[in-house]
């Protein structure tokens, strides 16, 4: 049985060589995959920047979209920026309170089985194609009432809800149960514990979830197709009316035969991309910080 002990320890034996070669192959493949992933993002950013930068000027932010792609007539996306901000705000105002309450319910109050059902449901909802959500809201709110920013906000909030609820729940579950017990041992009710201990501890994570959800909604296109008009060239602030949006300006401009419209579309894509990148990196950064804070109290 001591055969193994007599085997050479030499690194140049056949087995050792094979093992090393295999190790190098796997390492190479993994590195390649990482490089490809980063390269894709880099290529997207570079190509959008290259094509968007020429049209990126003050007019883009001060003028409304032009109707027929005639240079000098409009040529900005002011109305679309305002529309996207308002519709995203409506969506966030719906999804954040609902999502946070849902997360509190499933992490603090629901029996384990029900919490599991909620979690699965949210995952399914997160996977529903956004165009289906658009059609659903179209049938629910748009038919008979016409396009409106409200309807778009509702559609976007359905997209946001699982994002908010799932990531809030994750943070709530990170709050150590020793804090719940400490609060309860002092005579606090469950609700009181949630309000005075759990939420203050997890607030960083909830802010993060909100930022990520905003970034997500700002870039959604399909739900808007069915809920707010494509042609909306004026600045609209009345949420009962349809509004322009950045994603639809991109969609529309890229289809347009006018080179000017195409340029504006690229510039709009750049604006959206930068906004979403800043939003989601800020979100991730904050989330790391709040996680560290919570882990301190473990």
């Amino acid at each position, binding site marked *: 049985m001591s055969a193994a002990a007599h085997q050479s320890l030499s690194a140049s034996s056949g087995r050792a060589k094979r093992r090393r070669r295999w190790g190098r192959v796997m390492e190479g493949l993994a590195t390649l995959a990482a490089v490809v992933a980063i390269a894709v993002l880099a290529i997207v950013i570079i190509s959008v920047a290259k094509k968007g930068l020429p049209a990126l000027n003050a007019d883009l932010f001060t003028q409304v979209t032009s109707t027929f792609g005639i240079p000098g007539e409009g040529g900005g996306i002011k109305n679309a920026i305002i529309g996207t901000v308002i519709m995203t705000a409506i969506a966030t105002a719906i999804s954040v309170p609902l999502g946070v309450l849902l997360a509190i319910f499933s992490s603090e109050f629901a029996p384990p089985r029900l919490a599991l059902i909620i979690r699965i449901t949210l995952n399914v909802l997160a996977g529903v194609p956004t165009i289906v959500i658009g059609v659903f809201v179209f049938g629910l709110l748009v038919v008979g009432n016409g396009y409106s920013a409200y309807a778009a906000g509702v559609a976007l909030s359905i997209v946001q809800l699982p994002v908010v609820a799932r990531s809030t729940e994750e943070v709530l579950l990170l709050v150590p149960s020793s804090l719940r017990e400490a609060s309860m041992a002092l005579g606090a009710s469950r609700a009181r514990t949630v309000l*005075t201990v759990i939420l203050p501890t997890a607030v960083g994570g909830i802010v993060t979830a909100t930022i990520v959800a905003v970034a997500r909604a700002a870039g959604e296109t399909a739900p808007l197709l069915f809920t707010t008009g494509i042609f909306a060239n004026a600045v609209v602030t009345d949420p009962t009316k349809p509004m322009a949006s950045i994603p639809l300006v991109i969609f529309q401009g890229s289809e347009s035969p006018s080179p000017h419209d195409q340029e504006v579309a690229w510039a709009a894509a750049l604006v959206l991309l930068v906004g979403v990148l800043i939003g989601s990196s800020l979100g991730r950064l904050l989330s790391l910080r709040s996680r560290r804070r*919570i882990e301190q109290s473990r």
Partner: protein
Amino acid sequence: MSDQPNEPGSANPPEPVPEVTAARPNTRLGDLAGGHDEDPTVGHPTVFDLERVSVSYGGKTAIRDVDMDIHCNLVTAFIGPSGCGKTTLLRTLNRLNDPIPGAAVDGKVNYRGEDLYGDDVDAVEVRRRIGMVFQRPNPFPKSIYDNVAYGLRLHGMKDDLDNRVERALRHAALWDEVKDRLKASGLSLSGGQQQRLCIARALAIEPDVVLMDEPASALDPISTQSIEDLVEQLKAEYSIIIVTHNMQQAARVADVTAFFSVDVAEDGSRSGVLVEQGPTSKLFIRPSDPRTEAYVTGRFG
């Protein structure tokens, strides 16, 4: 040592507290081994009276048929091997098992003559009267001040908040170390200080009983000593029940010790039982049950 128990204005007895390391007897067994082990419970009314108490989680019995009396203004230690249900029993005494799904208590837990699990009993009031300190220090991620004030605000004891906070911190022998940084986070303290902060937090709401679940097991020896000194001082005002793995600790701090063990039934199911309870000196020196003897002499299998 960082504790200043003879701090003016604190609630400690005025007797000078000598250097801890030199003055502390290793255990109290030495003076008591001579044979005159008086019953420490004489003159101390009963605070808890347990009648055939069993606790189970989802049908599995964790501890069964415990009959015991716990007396006020004494330190009662629960000792025994892992899995003997001593922590479970401790948590039963302030109804902290209530929120755990499937937890059930049988028998009667009488607290000062009232059935703790009676229909009419408010768990919140129970927990205000019967405080708890946990195994690992668990201050809230709030300021030192807010940690202590948490329970006070909760129970509307908001008059004179500053003084109440100060008093609790003095009681827990922490005031001098933190008085200049009450706004600092409770998490910025050392482990031993955090545990004393948790004790202050429990004392602030003026409980009657303080339950301690291995309060020093996560601490270094010096912090452990300060906690033990504190326990010694606190029993003048509170009844203390302390769960510990550490027999020396029980021997040092407890007046009365209860030894629990694991009973394996014929079908292989395990549950905790109370083997014996008595004055600490008797339990350690002349245990009446061979299981206790095996445990305290370190021959436990």
